């Protein structure tokens, strides 16, 4: 069964310069207990998608269309109060930068117990108990001591552990991890990834891993959603996207540095498009090496090319010998 269904989601930012179509008709499903990778370059709409699901898109952003179902319930039609009881309790979010996602002027204890007492209405001491439990779950050394300390007294890796504990405090069913390792040292990155994988397995968590790192995707995910400029380019299993990738995914895969290959690092030529006036037709066409005139004029539909492998490309079939 699908825990999360996102259907033609549109989230726009109404800035002074114009309307930024950050998420422009995104559709994908997340199966319960699965780890899904949400992949794309920065500015592709990954983070905004997660924020939309939690309905915490910052101003001047607004969800202007589409449907989001969580456990079959339409969460875009819920009242704000009811939605708030979902946040942290059923759906959680881990941010990219642990330093800026912890409030610098409150202790770890006060920030985390607040969440428990908010949702459960329990006493401070009971809430503290649960916080300590969560902190030990992410293997933060000396969790009791940590309650009275401030964020700046911890290292980046420890702060990210605290953030993970915060997200898991109320045993949510769905966890978005928004590039949780990007701001960390390489060795710490591996620790955090391992921790997430372990937690996912042990608690049976459904995890959406937002990243631009194809390496992390192959390590953690069963299924991948590839976004580009607010559109879905491709959805498929790891095998599918490696064997017969969308031209954009192919370009992303080439950009992954690999230890076992001496091949030159390829970065995708061109820049992320301006989302106020996105390119016509397929949004990737200005940077696509296979683009033809049709790609400029016609938006390719997202179609199932077999075994749940979804592709939005006019030329994919022909390029893959179909």
């Amino acid at each position, binding site marked *: 069964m699908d825990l999360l269904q996102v259907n033609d989601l549109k989230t726009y930012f109404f*800035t*002074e310069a114009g309307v930024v179509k950050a998420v422009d008709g995104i559709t994908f499903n997340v199966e319960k207990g699965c780890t899904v990778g949400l992949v794309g370059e920065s500015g592709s709409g990954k983070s905004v998608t997660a924020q939309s699901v939690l309905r915490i898109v910052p*101003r*001047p952003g607004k969800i202007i269309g589409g449907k989001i179902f969580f456990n079959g319930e339409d969460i875009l039609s819920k009242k704000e109060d009811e939605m708030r009881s979902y946040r942290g309790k059923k759906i959680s979010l881990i941010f990219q930068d642990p330093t800026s996602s912890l409030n610098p002027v409150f202790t770890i204890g006060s920030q985390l117990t607040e969440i428990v007492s908010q949702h459960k209405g329990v006493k401070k001491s009971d809430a503290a108990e649960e916080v300590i439990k969560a902190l030990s779950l992410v293997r933060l050394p000396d969790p009791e001591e940590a309650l009275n300390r401030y964020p700046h007294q911890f290292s980046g890796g420890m702060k990210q552990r605290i953030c993970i504990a915060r997200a898991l405090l109320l045993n949510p069913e769905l966890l978005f991890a928004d590039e949780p390792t990007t701001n960390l040292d390489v060795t710490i990155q591996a620790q955090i990834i391992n921790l997430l994988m372990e937690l996912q397995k042990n608690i049976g968590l459904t995890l959406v891993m937002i990243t631009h790192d194809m390496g992390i995707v192959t390590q953690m995910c069963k299924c991948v959603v590839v976004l580009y400029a607010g559109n879905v380019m491709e959805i498929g299993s790891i095998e599918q996207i490696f064997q017969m990738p969308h031209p954009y995914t192919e370009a992303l895969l080439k950009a992954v540095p690999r230890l076992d290959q001496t091949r030159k690092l390829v970065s995708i030529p061109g820049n992320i498009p301006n989302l106020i006036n996105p390119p016509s037709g397929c949004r990737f066409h200005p940077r696509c090496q296979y683009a033809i005139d049709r790609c400029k004029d016609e938006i390719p539909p997202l179609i199932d090319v077999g075994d749940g492998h979804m592709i939005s490309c006019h030329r994919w079939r022909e390029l893959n010998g179909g």
Partner: protein
Amino acid sequence: MVSLALRKRGSRKGQERRSASQWAVAWRRFKKHKSGLLGLGMVVALILVAIFHSFIAPYPARPDPNAFLPLYEGEAGQPPSWKHPFGTTIIGNDVFSEVVHGTVYTLYVAIGTTLIAMLITVVVGISSGYLGGKIDDLLMRITEVFLVFPSLLLILVFARIYQLINPEPFWNVLGISIPVNLTMIVVIVAVFAWAGNARVIRGEVLALKEKEFIQAAKSLGANSRWIMLRHIFPNILPQVIVIATLTMASAVLVEAVVSFLGFGDPSTITWGRMMEESFQNMSTTWWAEVFPGLAVFFTVLAFNLMGDGISDALNPRLRE
């Protein structure tokens, strides 16, 4: 106060030397900034009035005896009318004419003070930030002294001492008569108007110093003076422009206060002087008090609006 308003704006990350096109981008952003444009328009209007003041004002400025024509015509202390749009003073001057002539002094104060204050700000800020070490220590100690000085009080004492020295009222420079006492006030105000801003600039320079293009210039053997002039200065220029605009606003305010309290130049009729003269009689001739006051307000407002607009145009991060 200027430095306070700016502290927040001081933090900006990675910026390379701004090319001409970056200035064009900032200008394009400024053109969309309604209140900033309004401020610019008001400043331009002020400059035009100052340039054409002798054509616009129906009566000449004191000490020209014709400034007292309304008195001879029996029109002293009259409320606003078609002939005297801002009314006349109790001693028989046309308030509108005096406000118009006052624009010249106001601009002189604004620009003069700002030029001197910014010169000190930039020199102290850059040398302190870039050279560091003992020079930095010394300059920052001096800056601290200036920051805790109750500056307005000292300005008043200086101004009073200078009034008593009683110099010749005007210098004649290339046919233009420069009011000596007002010039002294400009210098005094400027001397007390740089400390907070110099700290802001120093902070900017410290951040810039670590940038690669500065390191590169250094490794290519450029000397310190060259780097400060050619690399550091152009990069802090946007910040300097914003600070300068806001310094103009506060210079006009301070001069108005100094003159209003009776410490101004006795031989020039600035807006503050006009307010001082009419203060005792303001229950009867309120117009002689209110119109110069409004002139000060709109001038300061113009500079502040323009400063805000420039700041927003140069730091787009602050706007959504």
